[in-house]
């Protein structure tokens, strides 16, 4: 059995699939009876999606133009 604090500490690693088998079983056992940690898990998933959603910036046209000009020069050297 693990505590909520121990389960929460491992939730992201659990989601990333980088906990070992015994840790995974302990986390899943804890989640099977702890509603609050299930909420933590769902929120960790939301945070992962949130980060991925904000991963890209628009490349400003002026910056793209200057970087493309760099590629033009490289192609001619």
């Amino acid at each position, binding site marked *: 059995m693990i505590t909520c*604090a121990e389960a*929460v*500490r491992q939730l*992201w*690693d659990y989601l*990333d699939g*980088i906990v070992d088998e015994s840790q995974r079983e302990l986390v899943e056992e804890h989640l099977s009876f702890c509603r609050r940690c299930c*909420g*933590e898990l769902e*929120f*960790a998933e*939301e*945070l*992962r999606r*949130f*980060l*991925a959603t*904000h*991963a*890209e*910036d*628009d*490349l400003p046209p002026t*910056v*793209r133009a*200057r*970087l*493309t000009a*760099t*590629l033009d020069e*490289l*192609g*001619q*050297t």
Partner: protein
Amino acid sequence: MRDGAYPDSERASVDRFRALAERELPHLYAIARRFVGNDAEDVVQECLLRAYRNFSQLEHEQAGGKWLTSILVNCCRDHWRARGRRVEVVELDEADEFSLFRKIADEDPFPYSDSVHLDFLHQFGSEDVRAVLASLPELYRVPLVLVHMAGYHVKEVAFMFDVPLGTMLARLHRGRKLFERELWSYAEQNGLLKEGARR
């Protein structure tokens, strides 16, 4: 050598490099913005120069995106070194135990909402997220961005930085916790916890 003076094989290589670089430009720029802020364009340009010089070392072109990102990360590290940035290590403290989930539940910033946790996240636009990330020490921001925004596996990031996997996992964990804590602080400081602030 001027355009047209290349042998066909070299011309084809130059064209392949260009196609790869143009395809990856938005991705490289997005990562660079999160690592070096307003110096992103300079760092991406340096990355293109280095990559072009070493393009023959790329064995599998389907790995070209990650290859370019690795070069970009090295350019960012050189950029930090050139500016004498010290690596800021955050001591083990309450950040490791911080839970944004619990904080939102306890503080209940949107008391009339049935989805208070999602509502909290929906307050943040891309500029806000960039500002929160920028407030994190590089040591923790870099793995967070590479794993959760650029799609790297944490093992690849550990290899890239030549540190043991356990070390990188610890940095990533702390990065996530610091990110959660800074999201809350940013929301407090920028009035995102008011009902009227919803976007």
